[in-house]
């Protein structure tokens, strides 16, 4: 994967976030404060604009630029959390021009660690982490057993989607939704839902060329 793959990932993520902004906001209205889609759309559009403006030349720089833009423009809790995730992932990739699937796995791990360190959320708290943890594990499992990149990113996106489904039965323990406690049961977590979109975008950007052309 070179810089163009990473640019495609972010472009796809921006598109998915924009297309689903109302849905994310709707999910947030049920258990939070109805701004997740609005904020994330603003953040990713700013990230896309900053990438166009600065044209970073390495995959690592693409991700750290995205992280910085998300922190600067998103607001809410999701800005610092996703921003830190992308920045940590970017730092892990260093200055390399070409990134291997193993390196991407390490970057995803670093993103997860950064998000968990900042937000202090554990699995089962009904947060973005409930989509991210299974996704990172699924990616790693495919790579460890000799699978290729498209399989690994697809597995990550699917695991994230399953993690999102599992948040429906959970009672929120972190973030603004935690004020509602048990009243959050029965609703998807908006942060987990946006994590699914970002990983879906990664799968689209790294998937088989034929599938990409068809989608």
């Amino acid at each position, binding site marked *: 994967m070179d810089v163009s793959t990473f640019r495609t990932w972010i472009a796809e993520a921006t598109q998915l976030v924009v297309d689903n902004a109302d849905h994310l*906001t709707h999910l947030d*209205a049920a258990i*939070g*404060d*109805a*701004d997740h889609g*609005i*904020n994330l759309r*603003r953040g990713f559009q700013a990230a896309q604009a900053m990438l166009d403006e600065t044209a970073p030349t390495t995959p690592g720089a693409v991700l750290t630029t995205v992280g910085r833009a998300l*922190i*600067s*423009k*998103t*607001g*809410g*809790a*999701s*800005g*610092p*959390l996703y921003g830190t995730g992308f920045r940590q992932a970017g730092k892990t990739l260093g200055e390399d021009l070409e990134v291997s699937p193993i390196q991407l796995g390490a970057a995803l791990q670093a993103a997860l660690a950064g998000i968990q360190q*900042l*937000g202090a959320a554990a699995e089962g708290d009904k947060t973005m982490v409930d989509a991210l943890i299974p996704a990172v594990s699924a990616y790693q499992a495919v790579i460890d057993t000799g699978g290729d990149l498209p399989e690994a990113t697809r597995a990550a996106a699917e695991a994230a989607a399953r993690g999102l489904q599992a948040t429906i039965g959970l009672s929120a*323990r*972190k*973030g*603004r939704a*935690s*004020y*509602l*406690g048990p*009243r959050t049961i029965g609703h998807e977590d908006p942060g987990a839902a946006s994590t699914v979109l970002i990983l879906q975008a990664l799968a689209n950007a790294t998937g088989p060329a034929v599938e990409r052309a068809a989608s």
Partner: protein
Amino acid sequence: MKKLINAPDEVLLDALAGVAAAHPSLSVNVEERYITRAGGPTPGKVSLVSGGGSGHEPLHGGFVGYGMLDAAGPGEVFTSPVPDQILAATKAVNAGAGVLHIVKNYTGDVLNFQMAAELAGDEGVQVEAVVVNDDVAVENSTWTAGRRGTGATVFIEKIVGAAAERDADLATAAGLARQVNDRSRSFGVALTPCTVPAAGKPGFELGEDEIELGVGIHGEPGRTRGKLVTAREIAGIALEAIHTDMPLSGETLVMVNGLGGTPLIELYVVFAAVAEWLKGHGVTIARSLVGNYITSLEMAGCSVTVCKLTPQLTELWDAPVNTPALRWGR
């Protein structure tokens, strides 16, 4: 959605332009999104910076001025400000004695202020943060994000602002802020939901005869839903919740705060009930505030905040203040 706006995405910038045009005592940096005193920072004084999502006006911008805040960083509606703007505001008002961040306890606010404080520290600005968490409607356990910051924020900004004008150092100001926070509790009730302009529809639905108990200030639903009862009963519910959490006694500072869509006459009806309840429990109202001070857009309803005073806190509360939304004694 019926609102006096030009476009949903422009509400914050248009409102900041209005603040700038209406209040020559304030300086509004529209580009970096912060509000400071027009006269600039006072040399040698600890500066107070607060901020949070917009939609709670007059909090925080309306409390910038002599005796209260030095700067406010307004985020988008109900969305915490970003680190860059808090950092810019912090640097703009740093007068060499350090900067106190007054942060309401919401995950987003805490994270963004924390990042701003780290960046400010990297640039040599001494920052101390105080997290306000006075809302008794939220159970304070390790299983939640903790209690929300609501009405006590106004008390802290006023009282610590007064102390800062008298040359309290950063550690003293922070200690005082924590003291006021520890001695204050709030409880809110909503009669209607509210609509974030960019979202276009209400945050939750409420039946004609329903109220939401234990609401915050972001249009989020509360802990439970109940039937609409009398103002006297609502005051009782709020005060029982507060009293259970922090037994009330002695002299108090009491605020009955409108959430944005409730007329002042109803707030006075509630205040009468609050006064009656407190009297019945042997509690004295030494100071009071009735009006819209920390709102939730056009939400109808109110919050009740009680602070157990000490002679020092009363004296600082009475000290002169000169801001767009709070002004006396000068």
